[in-house]
């Protein structure tokens, strides 16, 4: 029985009265690469952002490696515990953004080395050595002295992955990591993710790269209108989707 590192139960979230997540239930197994697919506006990004507290969800429960955040209609919106727990959540969860969001005033090395120094109080030398090792892993060791704007989009996204990894998260979330990239730069990012998967990193990826989802993911989750419609083995979902909505969505990619 594989261990579930993320458990999401009946997660609800609405923006100004219009529901975006209507009761998501989802388990993510450790050491797996899970891909969430779905049409624009189906709630994929919101789901990810709820997982590390960038969005405040309305109802439901999120557990990440033992840290459980619970919210219900009975509990007031500004819950003190909630913010404390979210902060703890973020200690477990790394996030890679569509637009990289590297810190432009720091070198690539500092982007990776400084956050652990600031947040975890790691000594500068150790943080720097870790950062260099991670940058080497994503193929950016020789770029470590440059500033983000001197890198290509693909390089920036790889640096962002290294930055997220530097915090030693249990799970890495990706919010459309290749959508802002020129097509020829997409693969260098996907290769890094594939390598991480091979090393046993737990990854939860929102993406439109269907080829990548089919070839690399251990599990596909299809979201439609704020609900998990279908989930399972990529081979099965891509060849024989059970739900008509999944079939409709995947038609273009099959």
């Amino acid at each position: 029985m594989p261990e579930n590192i993320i458990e999401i139960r009946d997660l609800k979230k609405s923006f100004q009265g219009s529901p975006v997540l209507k009761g998501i239930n989802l388990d993510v197994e450790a050491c797996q690469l899970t891909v969430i697919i779905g049409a624009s506006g189906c709630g994929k990004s919101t789901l990810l952002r709820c997982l590390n507290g960038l969005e405040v969800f309305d109802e439901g429960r999120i557990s990440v490696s033992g840290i459980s955040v619970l919210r219900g209609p009975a509990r007031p919106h500004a819950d003190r515990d909630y913010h404390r727990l979210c902060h703890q959540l973020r200690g477990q969860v790394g996030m890679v953004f569509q637009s990289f969001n590297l810190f432009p005033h720091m070198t690539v090395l500092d982007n990776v080395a400084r956050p652990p120094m600031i947040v975890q109080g790691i000594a500068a030398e150790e943080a720097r050595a870790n950062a260099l090792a991670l940058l080497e892993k994503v193929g950016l060791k020789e770029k470590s002295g440059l500033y983000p704007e001197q890198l290509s989009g693909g390089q920036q996204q790889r640096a962002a992955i290294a930055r997220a990894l530097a915090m030693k998260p249990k799970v890495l979330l990706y919010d459309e990591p290749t959508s802002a990239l020129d097509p020829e730069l997409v693969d260098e990012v996907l290769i890094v993710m594939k390598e991480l998967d091979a090393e046993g990193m737990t990854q939860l990826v929102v993406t439109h790269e269907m080829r990548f989802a089919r070839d690399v993911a251990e599990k596909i989750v299809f979201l439609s209108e704020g609900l998990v419609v279908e989930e399972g083995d990529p081979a099965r979902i891509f060849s024989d989707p059970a739900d008509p909505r999944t079939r409709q969505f995947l038609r273009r990619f099959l």
Partner: protein
Amino acid sequence: MNTKSKVQGPKSKVGVRILNLRNLGLWTLDLGLFIAALLLVSAPLRAQERPLAWGADAEGGAPYEFQDPRDPAKLVGFEVDIADAIGRILGRPMKFVQNQFDGLIPGLERGNYDIVICGLEITPDRSQVISFSRTYYVTYEQLAVRAANSSTRSLDDCRGKQVGTLKASLAQRLLEARGDLGVVSYDGQINAYEDLLNGRLDAVLMDSIIALYNVAPLPQLKMVGPPVARLEYGIGIRKQDTELLEDVNRALSSMIESGELRRILQNWNLWTPMCAEFFGDHTVGAVPPRSFQQFVKSRTQSVSGWQAVKRYTGYLPLLGKGALITLELSLLAMIMAVCLGLVLALLRLYGARVLRAAATAYIEAIRGTPLLIQLFLIFYGLPHIGIRLSAMVAAILGLGLNYSAYEAENYRAGIQSIPKTQMEAALALGMTRLQALRHVIVPQAMRLVLPPVTNDFIALLKDSSLVSVITMVELTKAYSQLASINYDYLGIGLLAAAMYFLIGLPFVRLARLAEHYFSPAGRAMAVGGKQRQAA
């Protein structure tokens, strides 16, 4: 005669230490340290032998107290001689404190100095607020017109004309009471006589001794008409200082008896039959009016090119001293404004509702009221509720508090222009909001706000001239004092303007360098070459 016009002690060391703080991001945290330093600065300087501080306005000019044209660092005048004599008789060193004339009594009340010797007329109004010593000079108001004017022989001929006088003087009240002529009030006597010369005024009514010193050196002017009114000068003392009043009266009486007062007045050519009558001293064998003659000579002397250069060089130490105070004051005020402004901006953006409202209210209130009034409130107003600050501290606080509101808005604009995703990325990495602000948001905003902050520093540098109203002798005050005694508003004015410009220049350059350094492109240059790849 060597009373120095230096008011404030040197505090530059503190300033330098504060400037050394390298990390901009650390500024907020060092605010406490800065305030501690401020308090240190404000600690009163206690002399061993209690000096007697006397307040006067050196800009009032000759013959009261003015900078010696031959040595601008030295203060001379018949009241300087009287003050020195009083100090000698009472066995207390005299300390001169500069204050502008219409602030002399408030300054006395708030304890900036112990006595006022500045041609203060004994009036019933003033006597209600302060005590006066016995009279040390008696005189009258004297009308002066242009020499070519033969139609004006008395005040009655001035109907419908423009008549100049000194602000807050007996002459001003006399003229205003008439109601049949235009009254123009001046801060300094020189400006009034200059305006008479260049035709802006038709006549000037001032205390006869002022008329004497301004008309005698100028053949284009003449005194006309009989003495108007009669006035007596007394030394102003706080009502509660009855012991001091007795001391001062004792000193004056002994000066009158020994003839010392007469000799001082004769030396300055001020001993009139009216005085002889009043003091009952009809001694013949007068002291020659040396100081008066020297003064007239210094004013009428024409100056050759080389002498002019020498003269202007002579002004530099005094202007330089004023410039240093301006610089020190502006730097400390700006550091305070920058730190406090950052706190205000952060409160306004991220604070709890109450704090946010308070910060907004503060910013709006400060921006919506004149700096001049804020300075008056801090310096003259706060003592009413028991808070007495030195002029330097009040000036720094006034300017710093005022500019902090503007800096807060600069920061707010800067911080708001940093994309929200930067905060999200920092939070997602597990930083607290405060850590994200300090390490991610503020350093980026810093670059954006550098140009407007530099701009504000230059503006503050120039606004610092306003603090002369709270007795600070900074560059502008030094200029107007020098100009008024040397009758040279043009040359010295250009000199002072050049000094402001030179003070500001390095900061503009520095800001440009910093801006370049903080910009990603600048840094990219610093780490070597353009290795930017096509994205």
